[in-house]
């Protein structure tokens, strides 16, 4: 399946981003097909997190970010979220002093349909049973893996068109990560949620993705299907530090 055959949910062209002292992204282009999973890989400091933050309007940008034709660049985070973009940040951004259920309710902040929200919450508890067990517990007392699941569930409560995941495997045990990625893959298949996942753990991400981009020093140095990336071992290990 190539991107040419599907509608594009997201078209990014010439994206420059500044964060702190200097420019981090130097004009990147990538496409995200509707209902697809795109992964952005790269070593530390390559600009992966900044890319997602640029998509949710958290850093100053130049260039165009077209979400179904509408340019998100320059808009406030709240406005972007309102257009259906849910971002799970690195470190999860859990509301630690609130319960699991409250976290989910906050995720549904923009929605007005109370019954729909309730139904979705139950669905989240189905996807992530461990959250259902702990719904009245303080989110800060959950383990890293559970908090990561909570963060993803919270983002899904928005019923987003686009889900952005920033290094979901960070700090998680391999088994937990596999479980998490399996659930995410399931969500993508069942609900056709478009996903952009930024990862250091290339292997898992490549298993999940339809398209892969490799970022290095703020520029895209490789783009293609997961097979393409895996086949080009030399390039891959140069940019990712290890063979995939």
């Amino acid at each position, binding site marked *: 399946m190539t991107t040419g055959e599907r509608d594009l949910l997201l078209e990014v062209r010439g994206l420059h981003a500044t964060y702190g002292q200097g420019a981090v992204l130097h004009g990147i282009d990538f496409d995200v097909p509707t209902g697809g999973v795109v992964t952005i890989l790269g070593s530390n400091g390559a600009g992966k997190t900044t890319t997602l933050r640029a998509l949710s309007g958290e850093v100053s940008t130049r260039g165009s970010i077209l979400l179904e034709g509408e340019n998100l660049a320059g808009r406030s985070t709240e406005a972007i*979220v*309102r257009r259906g973009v849910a971002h799970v940040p690195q470190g999860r951004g859990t509301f630690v002093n609130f319960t699991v259920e409250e976290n989910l309710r*906050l995720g549904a902040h923009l929605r007005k349909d109370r019954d729909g929200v309730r139904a979705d919450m139950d669905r989240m508890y189905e996807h992530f049973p461990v959250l259902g067990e702990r719904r009245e517990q303080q989110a800060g007392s959950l383990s890293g893996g559970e908090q990561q699941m909570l963060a993803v569930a919270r983002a899904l409560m928005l019923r987003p068109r686009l889900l952005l995941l920033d290094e979901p495997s960070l700090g998680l045990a391999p088994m937990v990560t596999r479980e998490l990625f399996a659930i995410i893959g399931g969500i993508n298949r069942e609900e056709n949620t478009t996903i952009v996942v930024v990862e250091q753990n290339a292997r898992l991400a490549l298993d999940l993705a339809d398209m892969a981009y490799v970022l290095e020093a703020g520029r895209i140095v490789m783009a293609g299907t997961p097979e393409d990336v895996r086949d080009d071992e030399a390039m891959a290990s140069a940019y990712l530090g290890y063979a995939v």
Partner: protein
Amino acid sequence: MELFIQQVISGLATGSIYASLAVALVLIYRSTDIVNFAQGEMAMFSAYVAWALIGAGVPFWPALLITLVGSFIGGLLVERVVIRPVEGRPELTIVIVTIGLFIFFNALAGWLWTYQVRGFPSPFPQRTLELGPVRAGLPALGIVAVVGIVVGLLFLLFQRTKLGLTMRAAAENPESSRLVGIRVGWMLALGWGLAATVGAVSGVLVAPILFLSPNMMGAVLIFAFAAATLGGFDSPVGAVVGGLIVGVSENLAGTYVDVIGADLKIVIPMAIIVGVLLVKPAGLFGSPAVERV
């Protein structure tokens, strides 16, 4: 013994007033990480507005209601117009801005209504109730009741409504709040509006006792600081408990400790502030994160 209970009750009354101003301080601190040195002066200004309305013929309770609404809007505006531009700047800058507000509101009240000390009508009839062996003045009980209701309403707002959840979230984690679509800026402004409203309540409660003047709230602010410090600047519960403790200790110390007498009562909150900050800066109920010492 009767004197003791009397002093405790009147201590609870003044303590309630300190508590309400302290709650206002805590509301702002929790939402914007700022200590509003002008909180007392804003409360004083609200009291004057109420007084002006009453003087113009508006009955007490409607005047109070209008004042509360006006104070809410005023607090909101102050946050949007004055504080917003300096949010995120170093602490010294913000302290100076709120001190500037202090001076400004104090002088503005003096300009509009002169520095003459005036009376202020009390909504509570001057009667004494007999509760068993104890006699308590109705005004004192009335104050405790009003503050209790206000605090109760705030509790319901924050713990049981979606708006309250949203405001708490915005205060605790603004970045994540933005990521779920919360307009954090407006939540902060709302916090200031609410705080101004609560402050207005304390201003109106204090005015009959201390008499209305631009410098009316100066000492009250200090006591409120002590209450918030003791309770923990990020804890509304702490503000209430702290306020009551400060009020009662002030009264008891003034009555029973000769060295202190009436003049030195102000030393009590000072000692509390210094003591708490040096021993346990987070206060009784504050979270250790508050210890940005």
